[in-house]
């Protein structure tokens, strides 16, 4: 199985949820040969030291893996991006939140495939907890026209109720796929 860009971003969103974020904002901006990802959360954030350690592949806060030294997905992400001529920035402030700015170079052979975006959205909406997640999906085409759609977790929850009920989840999946299909067809 190929670990795709959407898988990496799912990992990052999971980190935000685990950091007790109440509001998470994801912008995904696709241009001809680059993908810009901005992820902002108001979770517990990190101190300078924690931030440094988060980049160390052998460090772990011990929450995910109690008996092992394994870091967050961040070191792996940084490595993948650096190998493929992209860029990565992380800012974090204790008790305020974390912001990530990532640029993937889609023209580079070593950049993993994008993966399934509607699948990522479905998964990131369906974790348990009362967080708000707003996703802005934008495509900027060659001539500079923009197209896109916005998804808001609270709004979808309001319509569908509990996402965990399989009927609701199936409808949500249909909805998300239809947004993406329309965007790519247009």
């Amino acid at each position, binding site marked *: *199985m190929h670990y795709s860009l959407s898988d990496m971003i799912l990992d990052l969103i999971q980190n935000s949820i685990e950091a007790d974020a109440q509001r998470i904002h994801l912008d995904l901006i696709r241009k001809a040969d680059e993908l810009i990802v901005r992820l902002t959360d108001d979770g517990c954030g990190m101190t300078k030291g924690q931030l440094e350690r988060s980049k160390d592949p052998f460090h772990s806060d011990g929450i995910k893996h109690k008996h092992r030294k394994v870091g967050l997905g961040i070191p792996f992400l940084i490595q993948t991006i650096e190998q493929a001529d992209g860029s990565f920035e992380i800012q974090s402030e204790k008790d305020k939140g974390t912001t990530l700015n990532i640029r993937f170079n889609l023209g580079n052979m070593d950049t993993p495939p994008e993966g399934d975006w509607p699948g990522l959205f479905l*998964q990131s909406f369906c974790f348990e907890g009362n967080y708000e997640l707003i996703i802005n999906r934008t495509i900027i085409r060659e001539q500079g026209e923009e197209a896109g759609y916005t998804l808001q977790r609270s709004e979808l929850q309001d319509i569908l109720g509990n996402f965990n009920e*399989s009927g609701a989840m199936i409808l949500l999946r249909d909805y998300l796929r*239809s947004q993406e299909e329309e965007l790519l067809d247009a």
Partner: protein
Amino acid sequence: MAKMTLEELRKLRSSQKSEMERRDVDGKETHIIVGMGTCGIAAGAKMALDSFLDAIKANDLKDVVVKQTGCMGLCYSEPTVEVKVPGMPDVIYGNVDAAVAKEIVEKHIIHKKMVENHIQDKPAGDIIK
């Protein structure tokens, strides 16, 4: 698929709900819990989730709750999925790819028989037949 509006989504959901209310539910639900740790995702947990939803839809199953959980600590056997069916022991399945997910729905959930080769956490031998 034509682009669905929020209004259409709302309508579909309410017709689905009224259908649910007409059935006499005994209050028992089946739970499918998919492990979504880093390794679960890398191993294809997304494909498992998709396949569960497809099989639930194809068999028109009701009262199924599908959840995602973080790391289950079983990296070596990801994707890992816990299945709880009323009247059956809870089972953790490992290496659940799309085909196994479909099999779990058809065998375990519909016919109440375990999918043996993928059981991770075996309940006592006398329970499995």
